[in-house]
């Protein structure tokens, strides 16, 4: 199984590969969450949900259920 944003550890970075579902909200793309971009997990709330991300300098928070749809390749 491929890794998703939800499997990142705090401070860890990855590159967004693709979305495992067509229904990814357009707003997320517009806010900079695009394939090829680097994503870092900055912080999580208790139970790792929501997740506070830094995607190429764009800071945003998404829920775990959405994070599970975004496939990544861990880089460090």
């Amino acid at each position, binding site marked *: 199984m491929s890794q998703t944003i939800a499997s990142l550890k705090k401070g860890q970075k990855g590159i967004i590969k693709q979305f495992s579902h*067509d*229904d*990814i*909200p*357009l*707003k*997320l*793309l*517009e*806010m*900079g969450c*695009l*394939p090829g971009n680097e994503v870092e997990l*900055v*912080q*999580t*709330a*208790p*139970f790792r*949900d*929501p997740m*506070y991300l830094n995607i*190429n*300098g*764009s*800071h*945003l*928070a*998404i*829920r775990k*259920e*959405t994070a599970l749809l975004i496939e990544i390749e861990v880089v460090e």
Partner: protein
Amino acid sequence: MPKQINVALIGNPNTGKTSVFNHLTGLNQQVGNYPGITVEKKEGICKLPRGLKAHILDLPGTYSLNASSLDENIVIELLLNKNDKDYPDVAVVVSDVENLKRNLLLFTQIKDLGIPTILAINMADRMDRKGISLDIARMEERLKTKIALVSARKKTGIEELKELIINHRQISTEPCVNASTIAPDYFDSLRKAFPNQSLYKLWLVITHDVNFGSLNRNNLDKTSGFKTKEKTDLKRLQQKETIVRYQFINGILKETFTKDISAATDLRSKLDRVLTHQVWGYFIFFGILLLIFQAIYDWSSYPMDLIDSTFAFLGEWSKEILPSGMFTSLISEGIIPGLGGIVIFIPQIAFLFLFISLLEESGYMSRVVFLMDRIMRRFGLSGKSVVPLVSGTACAIPAVMATRNIEDWKERLITILVVPFTTCSARLPVYLIIIALVIPDERFLGIFNLQGITLMLLYMLGFGMSVFSAWILNKILKIKSKTYFVIEMPDYKLPLFKNVAINVVEKTKSFVFGAGKIILAISIILWVLASYGPTEKFDNAEKIVSEQYGESLTPEEFHNHVASIKLENSYIGMMGKGIEPIVRPLGYDWKIGIAIVSSFAAREVFVGTLATIYSVGSDEEKTIKDRMAAETNPILGGPLFNFASGISLLLFYAFAMQCMSTLAIVKRETNSWKWPALQLVLMSGIAYIAAFAAFQILK
């Protein structure tokens, strides 16, 4: 006289768009509503050099032209309708230098509509600190536009921006991204069907469900035989379009934007390490809440006492200097106490909006959303419900409107339904006066003021009740909806004094003039009802008293007896007596009954009503509180406002849906009378039962 230049300010949220607006217009601005909907419309006049003027429209913040909310629809609707009187001669896209990439997405979309578009890069003062440098000339060339480097904080670049607005005709209207590359065949057929329209404009019409005047989606289908695609295909194309735009932007930024990371100081991550911490984050949040309530209760009591006694004095004074008669009595017993009941709210409302706008301006509010999302979701709410619930402590109306950025319909509906339980500022005067009457002004453990603790408990009760009913609604309501949740975590910023001040003044003003009108009108009606009566008893009150008591009374006692007979036999007295059986089990007399009925329209009327009722016929200069404390319970004896009836009243006001404006706004936001009706029946029912139980147990 030359025509005013129509300017539309557009930008992502958190780019300081409003600060730029405030600088351009100064205090020359007004806030209204777009016709038919409740989205705030901010516009103002900007004086330009050489005697020119511009009409500036501050459009709601949006991330793109692919609208997903009502606020965002406003932006597209305006930009697609050339016949709108506000259609811009020039658009100014305000962007944040640190989030330039994301901000440029919106810029390219607007540029592609063929509107002259200026790019204002705000927060230029942060560039040094963040190690950012820009090649403006190259960027202007690639984006085919003019750029103003602005710092709303340091007030730089505003004059340059004004010059660009004057010279807007020199800006190219050529599109910068060719969106048709995402599906060449599809766009080709579109171009053939509508040779005279801008392609990107057509594309926006196709992908949105809204009507834009003569151009709408169904029309497109019928008139041309042109077939639009399936929704899922369109969505995929929109995603593709976004990617194409970002590729274009990345190309430009590679050439023009450099960031020296070693020069950057990272305040954000240091603050976030504490403020979004899994433990400390919550401690700090609750600490801030505690501070806010303590401050509202403590600090605003001084101006409020002053206002209260000033109006008592004014009423007395007007009686002395004006010739006695019906007119004077309308002023001193109707209008002045009524006005006092409005003005007394100002300190608390101002403090509350001060804190809310500080939290929002600083960027902290997004952290609260982040921290609370998981917890709120258990109750069927969203982290974004926290902002409406906190704003609900000011007023439910803006709070209901603030639910618009909750993407999920079920979460949004539940938030709207439970927001009125939070303790709005209109409840505050009711709480304050009752607490002052029935809770001793003593300290608990030597530090905490008992009255302050009671107030805080009431706020927690309101909040608890909204969360509890959300939990129930979440179980009952069968609404299927796809949930998703995205929130931007903006950089921390020191709030700008000017923005905070304008916000506080604006919100307070809209309360005073909005709610104030209702309160004043009701005060006058009440005075009329209390000053006239249908029966002989009312007209002959003097005679009845002198027959009953003879000469044994002092003039003052005589006067008081007359006044109380008159009040009892006035129209309002009869109405009050009529509903007394209903409110007696709650520990109230007919006067409180009247106050409850009249405050159905708006809670804040309660204190004003009692002020009016008790000042009819009273001769002495007394504050409302003194008069209420002197009331006795006609049946049980003892003071009318005692612990049991006081708690019962507090609970009644905590739960009852006593605000017509909220019902109206809920109807508008949910587009159905079903939800406001449900609120009215359930909330008032809960209020009656709770007040009844409290009085029967405590009496």
